[in-house]
């Protein structure tokens, strides 16, 4: 029975591996002087965004599709997750002139 077992083991080893699932990454977006800083260009579904409020004012990072809403006191930071592919419009609820657009790929 040794030979067949070896063959099965070999066959298992030779089976094509499923593509490795990309580990979720964390990207930082800095908020300062009444503006959202540069947004990551390579966002994938499942990635995290660390919002860092360096401003002296309280801000929010609020997804218009309601997929996330973080409220940031001056100096605070918080994480949100982009769950699916597509464009997400982000606004500060306190300062509607502050906007950013996230582009998320699958």
């Amino acid at each position, binding site marked *: 029975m040794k030979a067949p077992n070896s063959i099965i083991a070999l066959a298992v080893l030779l089976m094509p591996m499923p593509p490795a699932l990309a580990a979720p990454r964390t990207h930082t977006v800095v908020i300062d*002087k*009444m503006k959202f800083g540069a947004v990551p260009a390579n966002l994938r579904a499942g990635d995290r965004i660390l919002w860092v409020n360096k401003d*002296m*004012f*309280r801000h929010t990072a609020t997804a218009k599709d309601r997929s996330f809403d973080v409220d940031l006191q*001056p100096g605070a930071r918080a994480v949100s997750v982009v769950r699916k592919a597509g464009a997400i419009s982000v606004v500060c*609820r*306190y*300062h*509607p*002139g*502050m906007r950013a657009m996230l582009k998320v790929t699958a």
Partner: protein
Amino acid sequence: MTAKSSLLAAAAAFAIATVAAPVLADSGPTDAQIAHIAYTAGALDVAAAKQALAKSHNKEVREFASTMLRDHEAVNGQALALVKKLGVTPEDNATSQALARQAAETHDRLAKLSGAAFDEAYAKNEAAYHQAVNSALKGTLIPSADNGELKSLLETGLTLFSEHQHHAEHLAAKL
């Protein structure tokens, strides 16, 4: 912006420009006067926000007023810390007094209103007030500031107040 609120803005800008003229006769307001004017402008808007929070039942108006209260208190907190650090004593002046006089008139006019009439008058006045203060910041206060840190804080103020102005205009248009 309606004719009425444009008129208000023009009147406020005129008050700042004309009253500032004697102060500006030599070489523009001093940093001590600029600090006083900027702080006064913020404190007056905080007072207006408190009036709105006491009178308005409109959710958007109340949220706007809360933002005004929080943001202007934040800038003024920084301004106080800065003048302390620089050893500057803010100096009262004709421009600060004109701003305060005009804000008192607005406060009394708005005190007689209620409901939607109050909300609309508050939002329009906020748009006009921020426009007037922004004109003063751009035209007089920022160019005249000698200290780099004061100039920088005034520029942050201008960025903030410009957003407030647009926010107020948008709010006024919806009411």
